[in-house]
């Protein structure tokens, strides 16, 4: 295979490439934060006028809460907010398709590029 000679990239286009990557990085990391996709909202199991008993804390647990400076009102938010693990099958399917599609494309396109690398490096010899 003939040796591939890449084109020279101008300084301006190098700058454009860096800018593209910076924008992409910030979009990937910052947009989910901005759009509220980050983290999960928990479900609050409401109790009026919480006490250690109504929060189902044993005497041993209460002693530790108090050493940490907590009373029932302060501990309420930590104890009563719980995850909801109801599965959205549509979202799960979407995630599988996106991740699966990504890896399939990644390995197939990489293999195509890799064959060019090997052909130029080794030619047809062993």
């Amino acid at each position, binding site marked *: 295979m003939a*040796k*591939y*000679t*890449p084109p020279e990239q101008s300084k301006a286009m*190098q700058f454009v*490439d*860096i800018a*593209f*990557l*910076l924008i*992409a*990085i*910030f*979009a*990937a*990391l*910052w*947009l*989910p*934060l901005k759009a509220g*996709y*980050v*983290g*999960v909202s928990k479900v609050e199991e409401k109790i009026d006028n919480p006490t250690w008993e109504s929060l189902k*804390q044993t*005497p*041993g*647990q209460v002693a*530790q*809460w108090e*050493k*940490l400076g*907590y009373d029932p009102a302060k*501990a309420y938010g*930590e*104890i009563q907010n*719980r*995850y909801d*693990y109801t599965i959205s099958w549509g979202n799960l399917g979407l*995630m599988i398709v*996106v*991740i699966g599609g*990504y*890896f399939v*494309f*990644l*390995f197939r*396109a*990489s*293999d*195509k*590029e*890799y*064959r060019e*690398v*090997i052909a*130029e*490096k*080794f030619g047809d010899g*062993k």
Partner: protein
Amino acid sequence: MATAAETSPSTVQKISLLRVLGPAHVWALGVGIVLVGEFTGWNFSADKGGALAALIVCWLVGLLYTSVAMIDSEVTSTVAAAGGQYAQAKHIVGPLMAFNVALYLVFAYTMLEVSDAILAGDLITQVATENGAVGLNHNPFLVLSIVVLAWLNYRGILMTLNINFIITALAYASIVILFFSVQPWSQGVVLKLGEMVTPENALPYGWIGVVAAFQFGIWYYLGIEGTTQAAEEVRSPARSLPYGTMSGMITLLIAAALTWYVAASLLPWQHLGVTFFPLYDAAVATGSPILKFLMFWGTVLSALASANGCINDAGRAWFSLGRDRYLPTWFSAVHPKYRTPYRSILFLMPIALAFAFISDLNQAITFSILSGLLQYTFMSINIIMFRNKWPLGSIRRGYTHPFHPLPAVVLLVLCVVTYFAVFLGFGAQLTAMVIFYIIVSLWFHFYRYQYVRRGDQFTMPWPKPRGY
């Protein structure tokens, strides 16, 4: 300034990274990055599944990382080049995969560095406030830690990792001292595991909670694979990398077990699951001012050691992309005096600072975990391709890991479980991040790849891979 990829070998002597590191530095780099995971982050797995779930995933994710360390030791002791897994991907899978792997590394380490800075800043602010300081903001501490550590990395890897060795050892010692100070052999005296973790609250969400807990279980060990980033700077990669990585993994497995035992025995699981400072809070719960002081410094030092190693690793991954023309070659400059990839280090610093200001701790941790997870998926497939393309005996390996392909299969299965765990609570974030990787992959494959010199991507003195 000499730029490795821009200068012609015939006219200018290349400036390369220095080979000055030994196994202790490799240990310090790996454990230094990861140890902060014992001081914060792992405990969010208790929030997702309960205290017992946090212990179960400590072991199972330990298995995942043991597989990572075994696989990594074999491939990196054979492909000893800066960029670690990036260089592996370049030689075994192809340029596009290498580009993606480098981005995983940069994202994982930069967001880990952000998490470290937030942790140190938040703890210093909290303790200062408890001691009477008024109106204190954590931002100056974030800036100070990131900028000072970037400067340290700019000045040279040997000094950076010597400092890391010392502060990592001190932080590790604080965990061991805490463990023995609470009389672990006498449950009920200080520790109250039987009262904190009961049959009623051990698995509050059942087994689905155990699966969900995998997400933050990753944080017990995330970053141990960073040892490979120093491959081009160790004196004997074939010896130092396996020793440093495997001893680091053993160190972390012990630290994780001690940490869970002490923290779960002193803190109600609901608090354990949401606090940013589980070991510091465990010290508070003992009522001992000495242990409180010790865990304050242990937490701060572990965060600084981790951020220090992350700057080192992210800078080298970015540098490697520039050197191979996957990114503009401007990034491939090596400092003529300090022999460090200084432009890459300086370029990533404001990105870390920006995210330290706009994200909070568990958000930054989640970003880091997602990139790590994509990387581990790659590693499980990579080792199988490596053994297929160059079977044992066809090339000289620095280390050959046993039981192949069992570690690779275990790793892949645990990765799939962890994807599902991330889906349970953070699925939209995972999908958004993968869409980002799809977009930049298309950009690379259809545009940027034109600037890459094909044959130069394969630099190892190996025979042609089988099947090509």
